[in-house]
């Protein structure tokens, strides 16, 4: 297994900075996620770790050993690619056993280990199938089995769920988590899906424009986003600037911006409620039914505030045009730092 350390990694293409001063420490056996929008540099960093790209500067250490100049095959890292990269001219068995074969393992070991890995991903019966005869989910599991067969020190998963449908994504995500926990392999998971990242990871690094803007546990990142970008990217949020604090009765807050999650705001129809102290008056301009919840878009003077009300079955929904009263509990107010301060943090 292996702990990983990225020390001041910089990378640019044609003068455009892709990665800027990346510093991360990943613990042994941890499932660590690189989360960010497309083009933020997370896959580039993964490829630098795998040895497929060279950083312009900075070093990478695995178990304390500097591997920056190591060729890919010497790093003892396995990668599951977004499109799986299963060799089309080999069947399932040949794909999974490939890594063992090129390492010169004995035939008996190859057979036993391949069978074990296929069993692990519940594909034992499909060993002789051609790759193009498999479904997307099966191909994904073959890719995982192939990566695990060589007993890697580090497992890299580059958006491995992006080609699966929603239901399969959900089950596969849990299978990956279980497998990782059981084997204890240090795993880096790359995704742009914040829900996926939050449900699977021990820790998350949030990328934005080639920088890491936040590294922490999923709970801490969600509850204390610290920056407007993180607050907006992870979960839904209302960002209110200092100049608007008075409108929301927040003049006591000492910050440039604050973030309030939609589900933290209390809302009631003005006609049915008394006027609570500190209440904010607004008018519903749009509503979205989301199954388990209703999202109201409420216009407060010129600002639109999102308010989420969980659907408990018995509540009557309010319709657009309704005047409402809202209250923001003090525990729901999350202070936002300036961009630079957030990055430094």
């Amino acid at each position, binding site marked *: 297994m292996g702990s990983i350390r990225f020390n001041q990694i910089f990378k640019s293409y044609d003068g455009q900075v892709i990665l800027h001063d990346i510093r991360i420490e990943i613990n042994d056996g941890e499932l660590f996620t690189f989360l960010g929008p497309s083009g933020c540099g997370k896959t580039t960093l993964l490829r630098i770790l795998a040895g*497929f790209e060279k950083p312009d500067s900075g070093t990478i250490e695995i178990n304390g050993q500097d591997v920056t100049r190591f060729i890919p095959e010497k790093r003892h890292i396995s990668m599951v690619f977004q499109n799986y990269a299963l060799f089309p001219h080999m069947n399932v068995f040949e794909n999974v056993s490939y*890594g063992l074969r*090129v390492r010169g393992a004995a035939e008996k070991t190859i057979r036993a280990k391949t069978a074990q890995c296929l069993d692990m991903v519940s594909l034992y019966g499909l060993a002789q199938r051609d790759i193009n005869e498999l479904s997307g989910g099966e191909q994904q599991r073959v890719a995982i089995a192939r990566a695990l067969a060589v007993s890697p020190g580090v497992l890299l998963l580059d958006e491995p769920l992006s080609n699966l449908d929603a239901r399969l994504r959900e089950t596969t995500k849990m299978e990956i988590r279980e497998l990782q926990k059981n084997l204890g392999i240090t795993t880096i998971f790359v995704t742009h899906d914040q829900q996926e990242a939050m449900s699977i990871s021990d820790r998350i690094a949030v990328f934005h424009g080639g920088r890491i803007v936040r590294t922490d546990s999923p709970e801490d990142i969600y509850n204390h986003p610290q920056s407007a970008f993180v607050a907006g990217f992870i979960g839904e949020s209302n960002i209110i600037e200092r100049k608007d604090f008075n409108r929301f009765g927040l003049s006591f807050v000492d910050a440039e911006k604050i973030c309030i999650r939609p589900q933290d705001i209390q809302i009631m129809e003005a006609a049915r409620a008394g006027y609570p102290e500190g209440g904010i008056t607004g008018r519903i301009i749009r509503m979205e039914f989301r199954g388990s919840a209703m999202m109201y878009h409420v216009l407060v003077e010129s600002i639109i505030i999102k308010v989420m009300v969980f659907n408990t079955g018995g509540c009557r929904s309010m319709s657009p045009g309704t005047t409402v009263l809202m209250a923001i509990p003090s525990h729901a107010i999350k202070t936002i730092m300036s961009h630079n301060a957030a990055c430094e943090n």
Partner: protein
Amino acid sequence: MPPVKINQVIYTVLWGLLIYIIAVFIIFPVFHTLWQTTRTDGAGISFNSYRMFFAMSVNTLALKNTLRIGVATVICCMAVGVFMAFFTHYFRTRFAKTIHVILLSAFVLPGVIIVIAFIQLYSETGIITQSLKRIFSLNEIPFKFAGFSGILFVHTFTQYVFFYINTAIAINSLDYSLIESARSFGASRCRVFFDIIFPHIRPAVLTSSLMTFALAVSSFSAPYLVGRGYRMMSTQILQSKMNNQMTMAATQVMILMLISMMTMMVYSYFNRKQFRSDTAKIKTFRRVPIDSRPLNVLIHFAAYLILFFIVIPVIGIIGLSFADSSSWMLDIFPRRFSMDNYIQVLSRGRIFAPVKNSLFMALTAAGLATTLAVITSTIILKYQNFQSRLLNFFVMLPMAIPASTLGIMMISAFNEKRSILFNHSLVGTYGILVVAYIILSITIVSRSTYTAFSNFNREYEFASRGLGAGKIQTFCRIFFPIVRPGIINGFALCFMRSLGEYTVSALLYGVHNRPVSIAMVNALHDFDAGISMTYGVLIIAMGVVFLSLINMKSKTIQVQI
């Protein structure tokens, strides 16, 4: 001194080798021929030879005839190719898969064999011509298989293939939901054809027209063997060469090459502009049933008739290869059939020599062309800079050099000892045909390897390296097996083209390297049609065996509907 990297050394050596090959065998012949047409006894440049070309009525007639044949061939091939593509890919018709395979055979059958077979069937003494005359008790033969109509007939049933394959691919790539969408807005089938289907296949038809035009204007075997005095540029070139008017031959070569190059430039412009569906997910095209019964019968009849004209020469070649030529000379139909022709060809060294020559030269040319194509494709893809773009241009250039012009260029460039050939002359040597075959096929071979290389997903390489394989292991176990079909495809195309090549061979062959295509025509002129047909069957058989072996090994030449 900093250490020199081994990759840099290999790169420099390969570049040097490629520059030498391109400069000597492609650029030098072109510029030497151009120089020959513009040189004067004194200093300076003169265009007298071009003035003389346009002053001679035979030349302007040949030029006009060439362009006429080009345009007429395009129209006829379009009718046949597009119709057959719709028959096998658009309409729900019977035996579509089998017919598709038969139609594709024109890709691998050397043109000269088909021309000779057509002569045996449709010429004045041909079997079909005489049979029709006898059946209908005619005094005269029912048609003349010669001149403009003869050439056009041969072109139509041998050069339809570009229209056929490109239209078929376009139909296959059509998103069926576009048709369903148009129908849902109330468009009739006819309206759907003109609003959806025709705009979709138009680029394919356009590029096929240009390819076919380029092929038709540079065609040699049909005008030479069937033309009967119908002057075309390709035959005029041979005429000038035989009269030892090499400056006029060179001028004719340059003019024909100019036509060909202009056509190819327009082709590559439109080829780049060909639109592709931007839709992420397209709905596979479903073949359309022909609801009207009379129309169904009519379409099937027309398709089977076209198929008859395409298949009959091959059947003719096989049947006549067993005929006793002497019995055939006395009657319009051969009376005696035996294995004698085969026994003669296979047992008598002198008669078998052309088969051996062709096989050896085709294999050598295919091997060398493939090696060059692999190197150039690797460099073009790896180093996407000015030099690699220039290299790409020079690899594409031979496509614009018609076979007949290439022959004259090579004679003109290499008929004396040249320092660039280390003080050797190439004309009269065994290798000149191999070089010519390579130049003729290098574009098509390198396109095949280039496509295979550029389609290689680099993540396979990364996956392999990540699993512990080194560069060499990754190359042998992953890269090569995946790109192999493209390499083999290129090799097979060059081999098949070279095996029955006639045009360049007619200009460049010598006593030692007489290829089977020349032997076929010579046997025909010696009234030994049985032997000629046997040569034809052997070429087809070698091609079929070769392609089958390749197909078994790599599943390369897959024919799909």
